[in-house]
């Protein structure tokens, strides 16, 4: 394992916060550098990219952290991991930060256990390993559903052709929501069965899923939809 401590940058205009947060991170095994002003922070990144940045979203009382997050994400993309720090706990603020490119969101006052658990995903240090959270392990598992986006590129009478960043294994099933297509209206969620899924250029997967246990009514609706949309 790398014996060098991972480097993190902190941008915040509150010296009290910087002092205590810096110590917290040092205890978790991180090397830190603090900044109180945006220009120095940006320069600092140019000189040496840190493993992670903590950015206070409410710099100088204005939500000026947001444009900074956006521009840093635009410039560095995956090369720079950005964590937003804020006292605001609303899910709207959190979603907004993430939409702009933040990888995660830390609430003030910072809880060191939560901090360690989040950092653990990115860096294993002595500190993050120790502060491991209590995990509830459920071997049988709790039933759940994952909801995510799929791009449909083709519709034929037996199913749909799709493109995705994710890999759906052959034989796996998923559900199309009623409001995805006109021909599904009024019939509830439609079961789909993946019959093929292969890697395609551009780091995507292309696949095909058939309408599972489709009624005559559905198949007719699909055919008429195709006829009208050819």
């Amino acid at each position, binding site marked *: 394992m790398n014996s060098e401590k991972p480097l993190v940058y902190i941008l915040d205009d509150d010296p*009290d916060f910087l002092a*205590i*947060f810096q110590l917290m991170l040092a205890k978790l095994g991180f090397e830190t550098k603090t900044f109180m002003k945006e220009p120095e922070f940006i320069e600092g990144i140019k000189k040496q990219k840190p493993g992670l940045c903590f950015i206070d979203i409410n710099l100088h009382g204005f939500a000026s952290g947001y444009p900074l997050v956006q521009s840093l994400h635009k410039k560095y993309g995956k090369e720079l991991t950005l964590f937003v720090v804020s006292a605001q706990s609303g899910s709207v603020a959190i979603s907004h930060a993430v939409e702009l490119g933040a990888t995660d969101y830390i609430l*003030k*006052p910072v809880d060191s256990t939560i901090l360690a658990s989040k950092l653990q995903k990115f860096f294993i240090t002595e500190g993050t390993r120790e502060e491991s959270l209590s995990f509830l392990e459920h071997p049988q598992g709790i039933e759940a559903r994952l909801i995510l986006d799929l791009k449909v590129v083709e519709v034929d009478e037996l199913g749909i052709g799709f493109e995705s960043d994710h890999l759906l294994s052959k034989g796996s099933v998923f559900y199309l929501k009623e409001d995805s297509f006109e021909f599904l209206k009024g019939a509830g969620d439609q079961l789909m069965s993946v019959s093929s899924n292969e890697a395609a250029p551009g780091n995507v997967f292309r696949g095909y899923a058939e309408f599972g246990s489709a009624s005559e009514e559905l198949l007719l609706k699909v055919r008429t939809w195709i006829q009208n949309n050819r």
Partner: protein
Amino acid sequence: MEKLDSNPSQAVQIEADIFELVERFLVAKKKEVESLREAVAAKDFEAIELFAHRIKGVGKMYGFPIVTDIGQRLEVAAKEKNKNNAKTELAAMYLYLCEVKIMKKVSA
């Protein structure tokens, strides 16, 4: 971390390596609160809001969850431009900062 009861005479245990920093913090914040009395009189709610917003974000980190709680209420009072509530919360903050005792945590 367990929530402390509001009896400030019960000493807060602080890790040895941050003890001095916490001491300095208490002294500095107490001074700030004192100077904010003028702000209340002058109805400078912005200054109070900024102070409250900042202290609520760090209080618990220094070992004082109560400071975070009072800070939250003070921020609300300042946002609402409620002079009476601001005075009350500021006084509560001052009282706590004066009376809280800290001691170095003895490692097992």
